[in-house]
């Protein structure tokens, strides 16, 4: 017994109004007959779009880690910290749990997210039938976790807003913060651009044969 997907039945759902419609015989750029929203069987260009965003995120990941995240100016002079130097600072000063949190949220998670997305993209492009359910679960995880990577940016934004005692202490966001923010946003977009239904498409094809 085969399970049919909407696509295999030639049916489309409108994301806006939920109307079910048939795929027109010719064509592309389908529109909902009721609300005129664009309709598609799968997200258009999902793979390449995800790739583009993912590559951009990877590029940004380098300056995000190399450039200073936060510039602390105080009586004691100015200090600019990258993410890693912050982690090292907390680790050496004994606050290892804080170091772990920052390391996980700011270095590990974005990196794992990018690796996961790459994995998903590659396997999907290869129409792999390997670990379908795990991959689907991985995708969901990537989507959920994504927003939490903004933690660092929130911290920097908060600090910058709060610590503005002219002369005594000022905190300014470094160029690394911009890059890091870009990484987080780009990976989120990449995750959004990816269509998890593509994971299951090879199964569909198998069923057709």
């Amino acid at each position, binding site marked *: 017994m085969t399970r049919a997907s909407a696509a295999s039945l030639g049916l*489309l759902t409108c994301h806006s109004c939920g109307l079910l*419609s048939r795929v027109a015989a010719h*064509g592309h750029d*389908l529109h909902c*007959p009721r609300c005129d929203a664009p309709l598609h069987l799968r997200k258009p260009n999902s793979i390449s779009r995800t790739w*583009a*965003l993912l590559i951009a995120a990877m590029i940004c990941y380098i*300056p995000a880690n190399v450039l200073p995240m936060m510039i602390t100016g105080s009586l004691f002079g100015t200090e600019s910290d990258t993410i890693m130097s912050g982690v090292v600072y907390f680790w050496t000063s004994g606050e290892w749990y804080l170091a772990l949190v920052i390391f996980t949220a700011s270095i590990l998670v974005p990196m794992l997210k990018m690796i996961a997305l790459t994995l998903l993209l590659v396997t999907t492009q290869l129409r792999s039938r390997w670990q379908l359910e795990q991959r689907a679960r991985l995708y969901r995880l990537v989507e959920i976790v994504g927003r939490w990577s903004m933690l660092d940016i929130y911290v920097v934004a908060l600090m910058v807003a709060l610590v503005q005692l002219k002369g005594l202490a000022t905190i300014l966001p470094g160029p690394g913060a911009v890059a890091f923010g870009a990484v987080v946003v780009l990976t989120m977009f990449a995750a959004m651009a990816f269509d998890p239904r593509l994971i299951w498409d090879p199964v569909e094809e198998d069923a057709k044969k």
Partner: protein
Amino acid sequence: MTETTHGKEPADIPTALAAPKSRRSVQLVWLIPLLAALIGGWLAVKSILDKGPVITISFKTAEGLEAGKTKLKYKDVEIGEVSSVTLSEDRSKVIATADLNKDAKSLLVSDTTFWVVRPRISGGSISGLGTLLSGAYIGVDVGKSKSTKPQLAYTGLEVPPVFSTDAPGREFVLHSPDLGSLDTGSPVFFRRLQVGQITAYALDKDGAGVTLKVFVNAPYDKYVTPNTRFWHASGIDMSLTANGISVQTQSMVSIIVGGLAFETPVASIGMEEAKPNTGFNLADTRSEAMKHPDGIADTRMVVFNESVRGLLPGAPVDFLGIDIGEVVSINTQFDPVSKKFSIPVEVRIYPERIGSRRLKGAKPIARDPKANYDTLVAHGLRAQLRTGNLLTGQLYVALDFFPDAPKAKIDWDKDPPEMPTIKGSLTDLREAATSIINKLNKINYEAIGSELQQTLQGSNDVVKKIDKMQFEAIGSDLQQTLQSTNKLMQRLDAELVPETKGMMEDARRALVSAEKLLASDSPLQTDATAMMNEIARAAQSLRILSDYLEQHPEALIKGKKEDGK
């Protein structure tokens, strides 16, 4: 599509609308990674392009240096950062590697200096206080060298330079016997204005003095002429003069940390400015500095045979009350022949201090020290130790004339020539007192004492003998004598007095009769008066006669003429 598998076929499923085909060959989404790559690439290229020269600076200690934190600053502008601090191979030094900015390349000339800026308190200035909190940084001062080839290895200074090379002004060299309380950065005052500071000091190679370098800022450096005098303005210069106590200071800073001051004597104001690195002597006090410079100095030896306690090197040499020199050193010498010690005192005499004013018509004194000294010594010039202060017993060497002194000559053969001396006035006094005491000591007090005792004993014996004599017999004899004398007197009284009385009455009677005879109404008296009148008349007539005869001498022959004729 089988109905069995899918259950109920939806009754009415509309067909999606299809828009005309408008396929874009290039997806816009790829612009995002392109943009990211461009920005990232640009950043990478920029960071490579911005990478300036990497230099190494060696220091004695890495105190305050921290890799990745210590900055290099030129005029407080950040020009680089220390990337690593390592030990040199022989472990004698610390080598700091610094990454400089790209535009710092032009700063790296051969005489560019580097030093670590730490908090420092010296010379009345506190510097680098900011580094207390921020940590040390490396200060940079660009040299004046014009070489274009950048140098990459430098030796850092241990002491920061006091002024930057581009500060206008001039540096001068001072020679001083000691450093006093001065330090690098100690202020230099001119009319109580701080116009510069000490930039460096070093002990002379022979260890005989200290050479200081001072930097006088423009525009004050023009007041330094070749005749300018420098002196220690450290602390308080207090002096007691006939006018009272005078206190000389420059400023509170100089009281606490010391300093220098300079002034140009009025006579030489307006002279041309001194060239940079001109050497000057550093005097101890202003009065000493402003003294007429002592051009020629004659070193002489004076040998004393008495204690020189209270005489110190630097004590004045006094000539008729004028300070003309000072004591340089005091030694001892032993004469093996006479087995006596004597004290040779080396003195320095500045003959120019003896004024050049001379009597009208006198010839200027020839500059012939030998002859001059010989003449003076021949006239009795001698050196003598005198007490300058009775309380402290300080001595000074006085040159004075003693015409009665035994003849002496300057011993020109010795080096330095030896001048004759005479015993000090105090020594004379002391010797006289000593001889008196000696004489007193020689007196045989015991003999005197025993003789005195004998004498006293003798007199005692006499008294005793007298005491033993029979005063009672003498007394009774004396009484008898007195009694007989009394009897004699009584007899005299009884026999002599009545006769005397009769004699006295006779005498009175004679006197009464004499009185009667001489009374004014007595006949004798009246007669006498009448007689006297007669005599007066006779004398008158005689005078008339003589007058007449004088006028008419012929009357003596012819007789008196008749009045009618």
